[in-house]
């Protein structure tokens, strides 16, 4: 379907570097990255609004790198929707058909069909300046989908919607993809990626730093940046010691963390998910576990219970459910034991 090879593009101080990407037909591909990572520039390049300095863009075995925007059959929905303010909803959705000089009766028919699919038929006569963000987005989507694009590009489509509209929009995007629409969706939101993507790519400073299925990427993050996206907050730069086949990472504050690894390097980065750490007020007796004593410095209410910040020389972040928190009767400044398996410690390679 879409293949990007060796795409480079310099834009002032920023550059997209060596972008290689292959997206098969019917894919829902989420490109995840912070603002300024180069997501929008990459989308605009695929759409033809920008051109790469070098590299090639192949769509359905056709090189479209220098092809005119109008002939690419790639639809893009911008973050701010770019709904034409001087036209009604009807005028907006009909625009791509009008510029293609399609008969007026056909336009009216197609616009009504597209508006019905997006549940905005009742808004057709309305001025777009009075629409809500969610309605504008549906207008922008209907306007793009009416051209039957081979590939649909979405730039942060959920970023300015409230929670209930977000769920509706996610449902709509999933059903579009189920109907066979290939989608590339860029976002800075990890939860969007998890809930929609079949495949995800993480872009950072103009480079795609990891790519794979959602599980592959977030269960085995290749570096600290990707791990942060997965919500992991426990990162430790360590020197690695081999004690008769048992590997131990020693932090700069001499906290020792046992972990499992095949070929560790002398130095590395260890990460531990906040949910993998168990709290005990007494020292547990299981010796195969990592057992680290620390003092609770902060208790922060969270969605499912509490987040504990524990100072054990290095700071650890631990999630605990409300019932367990109440049973243990935890307070700030209390000393507790943290227990976690060596299997729950991930050693990162590559760019630390």
């Amino acid at each position, binding site marked *: 379907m879409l293949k990007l090879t060796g795409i480079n593009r310099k834009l002032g101080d920023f550059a997209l570097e060596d972008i290689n990407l292959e997206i098969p037909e019917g894919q829902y591909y989420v490109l995840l990255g912070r603002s300024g990572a180069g997501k929008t520039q990459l989308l605009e390049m695929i*759409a033809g609004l920008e051109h790469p300095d070098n590299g090639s863009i192949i769509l359905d075995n056709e090189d479209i790198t220098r092809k005119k925007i109008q002939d690419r059959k790639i639809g893009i929905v911008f973050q701010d929707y770019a709904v034409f303010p001087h036209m009604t909803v009807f005028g907006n959705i009909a625009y*791509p058909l009008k510029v293609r000089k399609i008969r007026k009766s056909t336009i009216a028919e197609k616009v009504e069909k597209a508006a019905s699919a997006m549940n905005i038929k009742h808004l057709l006569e309305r*001025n777009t300046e009075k629409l809500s963000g969610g309605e504008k987005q549906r207008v922008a989507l209907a306007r793009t989908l009416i051209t039957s694009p081979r590939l649909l590009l979405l730039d942060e489509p959920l970023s300015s919607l409230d929670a209930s509209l977000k769920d509706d929009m996610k449902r709509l995007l999933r059903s579009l993809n189920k109907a066979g629409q290939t989608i590339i969706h860029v976002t800075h939101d990890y939860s969007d990626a998890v809930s929609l993507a079949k495949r995800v790519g993480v872009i950072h400073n103009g480079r795609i730093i990891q790519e794979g299925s959602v599980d592959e990427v977030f269960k085995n993050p290749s570096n600290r940046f990707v791990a942060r996206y997965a919500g992991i907050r426990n990162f430790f730069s360590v020197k690695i010691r081999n004690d008769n086949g048992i590997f131990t990472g020693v932090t700069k504050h001499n906290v020792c963390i046992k972990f499992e690894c095949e070929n560790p390097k002398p130095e590395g980065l260890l990460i531990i998910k906040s949910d993998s750490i168990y709290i005990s007020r007494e020292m547990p007796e299981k010796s195969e576990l990592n057992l680290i004593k620390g003092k609770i410095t902060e208790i922060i209410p969270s969605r499912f219970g509490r987040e504990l910040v524990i100072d054990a020389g290095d700071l650890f972040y631990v999630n605990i459910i409300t019932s367990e928190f109440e049973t243990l009767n935890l307070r700030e400044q209390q000393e507790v034991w943290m227990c976690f398996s060596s299997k729950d410690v991930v050693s990162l390679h590559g760019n630390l």
Partner: protein
Amino acid sequence: MNRNSIFTWVLMILSSLVLLFILAPLAGMFIHTGGKEFLETVKDKEVHASVWLTLWVSFAATLFFAAGAIPLAWLLARKNFPLKNMVQGIIDLPVVLPHTAAGIALLGFISRDGFLGKTASLVGLDLVNHPAGIALAMAFVSVPFLINAARDGFASVPERLEKAALNLGASHSKVFFTISLPLAWRSITTGFVMMFARGMSEFGAVVIIAYHPMIAPVLIYERFSSYGLNYARPASVFFILVALLFFIALRLISIKRKEKHITSDAETDRY
């Protein structure tokens, strides 16, 4: 009375003085013009011809130059090119030049010895002392108003809308006529009205190019220098009233046009 309100009062008094400075001479002129003299001037065919000439020549000059000024404004708003700042400076030059000097410069260009004058004389047209020459003099000093207003209008159109239109299959010219131009329309109209108004009030450049046929500002000057203030005043009042009427009418048309453009979009698209 608190300190804020004293400050506001000071601002209001200063503002009123400026407004008074503008309105007092005009009001004085209206007050000192007798009804009888004014009615005689209204019936004066020479005054009629002069006012009519001023209006249509300025309007024609604005229309004619808009064809080049609007594309130039779009280029300045959207494209970067070498010496862009210099081009911008050249556009503003007529505003800062003494208008009689502008007239002299233009005369050299459109007289029979000048390039444009020679070219025009090939088709039997002498631009000096001709409405076409007057139009050129008016446009020379007033076209920056249209270019600058239109440029600001195009610059205020989000580029993303143009990109979206391109992505939806529109050609560059279609994007210009269906997106950029309608969205910049209000600024362009303002520039159009400003250019028209500035053109018809021009005296310095026009008097060098064409004393005859007489446009209204030249006629007023001629009556003043030949017969004095009392004779020039009614013609001035009449010209100001006509110009105001024209100015207000153009403003109303442009506002209605914009409203119509927005509200009737669906109907024109569908039927």
